[in-house]
């Protein structure tokens, strides 16, 4: 359920009506058109003494989708758009087959992208604390099915999302840190090309 990361990364974008207010938070997060940044992903597996760490860059564009460019320890580019998930093989994007659960995550992710809160609020209990400059959002799954997979999801951020922590029911844990995020007005030509293809 790792793809959930990504929509959770954007999860803060969804307008959610509560005190400090989820509405404010989503407006705040929805403001930038394009966000560039670095990420560090740490997978803490129960059986491994140290986490599996990977690093790379991401590009989040409001009207296009997400580019997830893994750089170390191996290079692999991913793209999430309304059309689905694609992986770059050689020079071309290969659309990955939509497996049932995967496609559903993709749908949720895009629902979030488009500011449709119904998806998140239906599946999770949301709890927001802190101020606009430093906040914490906790998602607890509601449905029996999701509870068998996640214990909890924590999202921390300021102006933008900074950290996502995913606690799996089986004991594994994944931490995703977004660093040096900057927002710009437009995509570079290469990025536009990547989304267009």
């Amino acid at each position, binding site marked *: *359920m*790792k*793809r959930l*990361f*990504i929509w959770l990364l954007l999860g803060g974008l969804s307008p959610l009506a509560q005190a400090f207010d989820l509405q404010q938070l989503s407006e705040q997060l929805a403001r930038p058109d394009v966000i560039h940044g670095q990420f560090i*992903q740490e*997978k803490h*597996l*129960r*059986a*491994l*003494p*140290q986490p*599996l760490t*990977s690093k790379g860059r991401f590009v989040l564009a409001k009207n296009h989708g997400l580019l*997830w460019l*893994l750089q170390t*320890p*191996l290079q*692999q580019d*991913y793209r*999430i758009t309304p059309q689905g*998930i694609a*992986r770059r093989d050689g020079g071309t994007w290969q659309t*990955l*087959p*939509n*497996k*049932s*659960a*995967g*496609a*559903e*995550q993709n*749908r*949720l992710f895009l629902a979030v992208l488009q500011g449709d809160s*119904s*998806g998140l609020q*239906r*599946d999770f209990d949301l709890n927001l604390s802190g101020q606009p400059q430093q906040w914490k959002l906790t998602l607890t799954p*509601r*449905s*029996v*099915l*999701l509870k*068998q*997979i996640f214990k909890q999801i924590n999202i921390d951020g300021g102006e933008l999302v900074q950290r996502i922590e995913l606690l*799996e029911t*089986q*004991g*594994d844990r994944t931490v995703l840190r977004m660093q040096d995020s900057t927002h710009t007005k437009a995509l570079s030509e290469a990025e536009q090309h990547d989304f267009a293809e």
Partner: protein
Amino acid sequence: MTLPSEHRLPRLFLILLLAVLALAGWQWRNGAPLSANLMELVPGTAPDALELIAEQRMQEPLNREVLLLVGHTERQQAITLAQTLGEQWQASGLFDKVQWTLQADLPALRTQLLEGRLAMLSAADRQQLIDQPQAFIQQRVQALFDPFSGFSLVPSQDDWLGLTGRIQNSQPQRGAIQLDVGSGALIAEADGKHWVLLRARTHGNAFDMDLPLQVADLLQRSRAQAGQTQGQLLAASGLLYAASGQQQASREITWVGGGATIGILLLLLLAFRRLRAWLAFVPVLVGILFGAVACVALFGRMHVMTLVLGSSLIGVAVDYPLHYLSKSWSLKPWRSWSALRLTLPGLSLSLATTCIGYLALAWTPFPALTQIAIFSAAGLIGAYLTAVCLLPALLKGVDLHPAQWPLRLCEHLLRAREALLARVRTPVLLGLLLIFCAGGLWQLTTKNDIRQWIGTPEQLTDEAQAIARITGFQPTSQFFLIRADNQSHLLERQTVLNERLEQLIALKKLEGYLSLNQLLSPPAEQQKVREALARLPAFWQPLLDLGVPVNALQTELAQLQALPVTDIDTALTGPLAEPYRTLWLGPTTDGVAAVVSLQGLNDAALLRVQTLDLPGVQLVDRLGDLNRVFAATQVSAAELKLASCVLILLLLTWPFGVGGALRVVALPLLAALCSLASLGWLGQPLTLFGLFGLLLVTAIGVDYAILMREQIGGAAVSLLGTLLAAVTTWLSFGLLAVSSTPAVSNFGLAVSLGLAFSFMLAPWAGHQAHATAVTEPAQ
């Protein structure tokens, strides 16, 4: 004027009637012994017991399951509505199981995946593991970092090599349905709506008489309820077809039976101007009783289609009393017993010829026609016995003064015929008629399709198609039956077949298939995987580089090596095996057998070709086989027709001599030919049912020819008797022609056309000189 025997006859007959009534009461003790199963009506083309079992297995879900799509533009509304309806359906008590969420038993799934790591690996994954272990490990490393690789049921530390993930991802796609992780609902999106899939399984099957109607009724209420919140329901089920068939049958029985009854009663009243003439309807009722009792006695139960077609019996059965009632135009005064005595030879001949005609149907390989034949023959005998034994007693003392207008009409018709013959001679007329026939036959087409047997409402087929389009499930009735000595051979035979099916899928000739070897590989392949895994330590350095402890990998490898070879029965126990369970037929007398089901087939012939050089593999195409049987039966039906004619001819030689008999038989044959030609001119196809209808025309048409040839009471009175008989029969068969079941309507059309021609041709039957002249001048 009443003979002693005529005193005893009614009593004896009443005893028989009581006995039959008692038998009927016993037969109906547990409710109506009726059936609506179409498959009971079609010939058994599968002599092979295994094939039958496979077929029942494949059809069972169709006859017990309702597939419902709950649609709404708002996803959440669709889910809520599906939940409400699901609860209501569960509470209705009609269903065994109503399911709208995926009740995933994750621990059981994990166990199955872990235990199936050797057996359930797909062919492509096996190939990579064996041929490119390096790439295999590389992909695993990639997957561990891949945030988008999807959700893996088994945690990494239980499956460092990632075999379970591969198995999970290689499971065949189940259409366009996707899981809503929040609600667990299965949802498809199409036409701007979200469709939640709801499946319900009934207690009984489609062929219980009440269940389909109850399900259809429930669906109707649910539709109304969904409509209130702008929801939309699409449903598909064999049950709905059965319900629609039943409703249609009862509607048509009402129309045909009711229409014919009212018409005949009206005719009796108009012609005989006495309410007691309605007693002529008693033989009809007794006939139906006899027919039903005989049918249930012989077949255990009666099909609704027999009732629909059998309701046309009303028109034929009423002919017997009409035979002697119509003598009231010439016999003055008319006395029931003497009129009967006068017409008894004709009546008996008529019964014999009609029964020959009907019973000829019984020799066809169609249970449907056998039933109709038995129903009709028994019914006719019942009607005849009533007309001969009981009715005269009931009509004793009645003095009939029939209306004169029908007789004048017939005299008029006869004069018109004379006038015509004066101008154009019979051979010329015959020539013209033959030209008409030739022209019609030239345009005649034949059509044989099982679908003609079902008058399926368009809404049902439209919805089924919509469901197939939205969900991507396109089940076909064809499937492959695979036999082998043992499980290992069976799976290997499936492997060869699957390679060919994959080619067809690539060519877009097939959407997909489901086969046991998608769930598990043959034992030899499992062994190869085991051997390839043993070589893996030489290639797993990249995993060690990530920090995976070497002893963890070694432990896992040892576990994998210790996994036993999985057989089909074991593989079928886990939750992933659910769709595969129906495919396994298990041990047979000479080995084992399984089914490969197909999706979205568009060329059965192409599939058949695939099996030509594959031993033990057979395409079962029931519909195709049936259609072929239909076509083949047309030939045998034509032979039966000729045989029945020869029988009737032999029978008639006794009273009429060879020449007379030939004439009497030739007329209905010519009428049948004209009916056939008319179908051609009307652009109607000849179906198997139409042909059977023509078989009947010969039988009933002979009656008219006999009546005209006997000429008891003069030509006009005989024509009047024929006219009355023809009108009553038309009333019932003509009404069949408006049936919405194509087969029934074609049958009705063929018969009513044939009877019309029989009536028109009847005056050419000639005149039989009687030893004792009973002719009295008309009027």
